[in-house]
């Protein structure tokens, strides 16, 4: 065997050959690592990535997540807080949605072309001329009834990735299509039911928080209706249907709602 242990004096001799050998090197490394960790808590990990991006440090992120969660629970109408909660907690769940999109030809096309949904790109006037019962006509009817517009969505601020910020944006922008698709009303329990549906679909923590804590604010009757009718429907349809993030809604407007539902594997929600 050609390996052999050198007597210790030889090791010392070898050490002298390396004057720069520093016995304290491991300690110094540890110290630097601790410093780096402390520093990285207070430092935003990225520079500004996209218009509207607000780079924040992990510490700020933590505070914002907790703060927005409580504010949103106290007042669910604070859309900015709900949005902040979704963005600060989204991280790896957004990555998962992005990966699912990357696995699907339609999802890839959306990520590549990055369509945005505004009243301009949707050409709402044209949609109003579509026959009754088509997806586009019912979508615009929903917008008109609720007196909302696709332009009122909160822009993304706190997602530290340009592509994931788009995923978040797209998720938000397509929300109204879900109402059209499922027929869920814009009532508190309807929205919570939709959050259950989205939770099964996306696994985003914000949808979970809304699903579990949202019902606390409901009346007894509403809660009973939610858990007896809406939640079972949401769980079943959310898991059976195609991933709705991979749907290019803009191209489905001319189809009747029933056909869209059939093709995506969604049953209309039970009417109450």
């Amino acid at each position, binding site marked *: 065997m*050609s*390996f052999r*242990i050198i007597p210790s004096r030889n090791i010392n001799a070898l050490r002298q050959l390396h004057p720069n050998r520093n016995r304290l090197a*491991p300690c110094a490394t540890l110290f630097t690592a601790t410093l780096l960790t402390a520093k990285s808590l207070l430092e935003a*990990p990225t520079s500004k*990535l996209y218009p509207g991006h607000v780079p924040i440090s992990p510490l700020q992120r933590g505070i914002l997540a907790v703060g927005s969660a409580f504010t949103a629970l106290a007042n669910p109408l604070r859309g900015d807080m709900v949005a902040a909660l979704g963005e600060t907690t989204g991280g790896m769940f957004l990555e998962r949605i992005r990966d699912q999109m990357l696995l699907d030809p339609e999802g890839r096309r959306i990520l590549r072309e990055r369509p945005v949904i505004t009243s301009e790109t949707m050409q709402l006037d044209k949609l109003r001329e579509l026959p009754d019962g088509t997806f586009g006509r019912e979508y615009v009817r929903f917008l008109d009834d609720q007196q909302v517009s696709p332009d009122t969505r909160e822009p993304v601020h706190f997602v530290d990735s*340009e592509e994931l910020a788009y995923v978040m944006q797209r998720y938000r922008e397509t929300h109204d299509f879900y109402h059209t698709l499922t027929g869920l009303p814009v009532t508190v329990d309807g929205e919570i039911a939709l959050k259950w549906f989205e939770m099964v679909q996306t696994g985003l923590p914000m949808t979970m928080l809304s699903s579990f804590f949202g019902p606390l604010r409901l009346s007894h009757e509403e809660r009973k209706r939610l858990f007896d009718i809406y939640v079972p429907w949401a769980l079943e349809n959310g898991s059976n249907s195609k991933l709705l993030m991979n749907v290019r809604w803009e191209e489905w407007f001319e189809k009747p709602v029933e056909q869209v539902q059939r093709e995506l594997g969604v049953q209309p929600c039970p009417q109450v």
Partner: protein
Amino acid sequence: MSTRLLSHTTARARITLLANAKKHHNHRLVPALSCSRFLSTHATPDSSETEPYDVVIVGGGIAGSALACALASGKATGTQKIALIEAFDLSNHINWKPRADQYSNRVSSLTPKSVAFLKRIGVWSELDSSRIAACNGMQVWDGVSGARITFDAAHSNDRSTFLQQVFADAPQSPSSEQGSDQQSPLAWMTENLHVQYGLQKQMLAHKNRGVQLDIFEKTKVQGISANVSSSSPQESSSTDISEWPVITLDNGKKLQTRLLVGADGVNSPVRSFAKIESLGWDYSQFGLVATLEVDHSTSTALDQGKGVAWQRFLPTGPIAMLPLNNGYASLVWSTTPKIAQDLKKLPAQDFCALVNAAFHASPADLEYLCRNIGPDGQPQVDFQKEIEWRASVQELESHAVARQSKDAKPPKVTAVQENTRAPFPLRMRNSNSYVEDRVVLVGDAAHTVHPLAGQGLNQGLADVECLARVIEQSLLSGSDIGNIHSLTPYSSERFLPNLAMLGTVDKLSKLYNTDFGPVVWARSLGLTAVDNMGPIKTEIMRFAMGLEDVPSSAARR
């Protein structure tokens, strides 16, 4: 026949002399034993076709050939009558004429321990140094999280006094690196065919200097039986010859042997003959090997990534690129059986694009691309375009990251050598026992391992090194080399280390065969921690380099 028997006698006599000269403690036993054995050999009446041997090695692969060389080069074992049986034509190996622009797809990494052994049996000096690539660094990372561990021959010496001790006279690369003994590589990459060539050359050299080494090539083993016709009365009185295994060859010859060595691979017939069970499982994975051409100027590693082995763990299995010389590299891509078959059919250009993507792109992208290989092997989407788009997205993100990661990039693959893409199934096996009376297993016949750590061949060589030593010792002490008690030291020395390696590699493979969030998080934390803990990293390196038992073997010698 008679001359053979004569030489057999002289061989015995020489051993006796040797043993006496060495003043071994039980030297008085030796003459008596060898005498009785000789008589019994002599007494076999109808052995006109049955030729007696001391050692018959079934399987002329690297393990079998290395054992033949090791035995032939030993002082006592070199006097034994040895046979090597190989089903294929070994002349391919001796006539091996490598071209500088072609590499065989089957490449192995040889650890310092294996190289030291090959040097000792005279094989290393037969090899062509221009066909051996020193591996000075390893980059291993998690394809899901990006967590990375780097091994560096130069740094390892800085960090660990132990490695300095070891490398003070560790084997040197024959290609004489400019670095002194401080820069001893982590491993050496070379083609299996090259090692086979060296072994074959050395075997012939041994033959020429008079070692009784009979090589039966292009010969298959038809059957192995424990007993010849034990009807003859005088045999029952003789001690053990009738119990020696008889190997029937397809050319009609019969060999009777004191010790039968199974070096005949995963589905070892010798193991079946000895009724040794082998446990383990098939991974639902195939490995795809190929010879690649790479462009070193595209690598961001030190010295343009020359001599660096790259391995990325993907949820479908690890992909590894091992350095060869002249801008070539060897690929081992473990993946699902379907993808492995698809990759083989893919047009060369798309294949290269996909290999490059496999070292950079996200697992989701890879899954999408692999799904889009048509049944005819043609890509159903534009691979180049898809990969470029994703790379540009990744590029955009990485620019804005404040603490930019300095992860070294592997060199770009520019071409794949024709007809080198070959898939093979991956499995894990370990024999319940490596020895039985008159039978011993080495190499893949004894154990088979997942290739992710590049340890299979090195384990086999360690087996051979140990077995040759054990046989030598039992010859010197005058015991019967085929007796199970003489073989037990081999088994007890090799079984646990092999099992430990098998278990470690198996667990690693399972740990990385998922993209489940918490598991990814935990393993990434662990990997990063180990990467920052010098001493632990050194221990891992020593384990992988086959140096884990240095103190004991140093003490032995």
